């Protein structure tokens, strides 16, 4: 069940995209999600698609992973697309059956929505597959830094994120162990009706919850013993390095946004 999770699955590599500064990648991905809403005609969507496909190519990651990223959301996408097709009113009617009207505008809208979903998923997949979770938290911490001025606990948020990410595999292992231990005692996971399935989760959830508390306490003790006093007066071991190719990427995003603004109707 864990293999399906795309989040936090980093694929090591040494491509152009891999070597980008995580801040550039994070800002780019967020910016992309914003500007995708500027696109509203064929030309703009073709432009965005070319841009994303170039990024996919540059990341040197097999397209299989991107298709897999779309799969879990396919029903949501199809549902939205069908609603768009059926309920967009338009002038050029192509098909009519009782109350169901399919217009050219509706179809076009459906295709656009589909593209929008797929492109956003592709873009965020590039981000998560080419960036180590650790660098991602570093990037988040850096980008949140201005918020420290308005009393947002940036260091604490970053520490929480990095500890959480570091414990994901550990807790998954433990979940697996508890599941097996409870199975050995006769609990059937994922069988029966919804109510039975929910009930079977309890003997998994409660031990996991309790052991997380123990872990938290031991970790806090160990941190304190190693002189952790909070964010103040700390130096950082990891340092992000912004080089010319990162600026290049930002320029590319700028040009893309400008082109979208010019070409949109």
């Amino acid at each position, binding site marked *: 069940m864990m293999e399906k999770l795309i989040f936090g699955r980093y694929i090591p590599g040494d491509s152009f995209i891999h070597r980008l500064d995580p801040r550039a990648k994070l800002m780019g991905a967020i910016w992309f999600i914003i500007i995708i809403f500027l696109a509203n005609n064929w030309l703009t969507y073709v432009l965005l698609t070319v841009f994303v496909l170039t990024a996919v190519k540059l990341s040197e990651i097999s397209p299989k992973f991107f298709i897999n990223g779309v799969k879990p959301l396919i029903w949501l996408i199809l549902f939205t697309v069908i609603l768009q097709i059926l309920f967009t009113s338009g002038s050029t009617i192509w098909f009519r059956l009782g109350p169901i009207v399919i217009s050219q505008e509706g179809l076009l809208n459906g295709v656009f929505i589909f593209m929008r979903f797929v492109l956003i998923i592709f873009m965020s997949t590039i981000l998560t597959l080419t960036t180590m979770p650790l660098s991602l938290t570093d990037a988040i911490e850096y980008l949140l830094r201005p918020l420290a001025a308005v009393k947002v606990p940036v260091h604490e948020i970053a520490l929480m994120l990095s500890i959480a*990410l570091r414990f994901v*595999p550990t807790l998954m292992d433990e979940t697996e162990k508890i599941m097996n231990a409870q199975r050995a005692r006769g609990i059937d996971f994922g069988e029966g009706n919804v109510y039975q399935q929910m009930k079977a989760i309890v003997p998994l959830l409660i031990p996991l919850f309790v052991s997380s508390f123990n872990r938290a306490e031991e*970790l806090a003790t*160990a941190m304190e013993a190693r002189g952790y006093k909070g964010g103040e007066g700390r*130096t950082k*071991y990891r340092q992000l390095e912004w080089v010319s190719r990162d600026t290049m990427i930002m320029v590319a995003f700028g040009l893309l946004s400008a082109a979208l603004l010019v070409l949109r109707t």
Partner: protein
Amino acid sequence: MSEIINVKNVTYTYDDEDQRPALKGVSFSINKGEWVAIIGPNGSGKSTLAKTVNGLIEPDSGEVAVGGLELNEKNVWSIREMVGMVFQNPDNQFVGSTVQDDVAFGLENLGIPREEMLERVRTALEKVNMLEFAEREPARLSGGQKQRVAIAGIVALRPDIMILDEATSMLDPQGREEVLRTVKEVKEQENLSVLSITHDIDEAAAANRVLVMRDGQMIQEGTPETIFSYGEKLVEMGLDLPFPERLKASLKKEGIDVPKDYLTEEGMVDWLWTYVSKK
């Protein structure tokens, strides 16, 4: 020899538990460069004692002094800089996302400049033989390797004292041996004092001095040789019998007259062949 840890008459009670104190008037001291092992059955207060030494637990009464500094609110952080602690569960003390980040964690806390950090992390990992694993994530390390990283994290801080709080109890025999060897090497190179809390006889045998605790009190003290010659009483103290002692007990059952003193494995071999050839 100068005393580096001095604990005088310390008493401590966990408030939520029933009135039984975890520590009752415990006093001991450790000299510079000495390796002291504390042994005792579960619930004898060993771990509590270890935590009082670096101020993770504040004793109800009594005095603790480390490196000439008295443990109080003002000194606690300077004392923690002198004392490095390795805990039992290798997973739950691994803070960093990768090996090198974890080793750097303590240095970051002290505000060491980055250039020096890079250097210290490298040498510390080298000392525990984990340099090639610097980029690895904790999920991909064995228990023994994780504990060696924990030791590296302490070595990087250049402390005077290393406390092992049952650091080898969750490891397989191989990992245990690895960690003990690392501790020995590091102790010699850095001239550290080591306080180890353990159930493991090999670990206790490596010490210069063994302290035995029971019910929150210090009941015995001596060299490993003296303590191990107690024979059967060791089991009550919460320790396994060392292999030569077990052999002696079996021989005794067979009616063979064995020496009373504690013998190491080599000593036992010597005694055996003299005994057989005399016959």
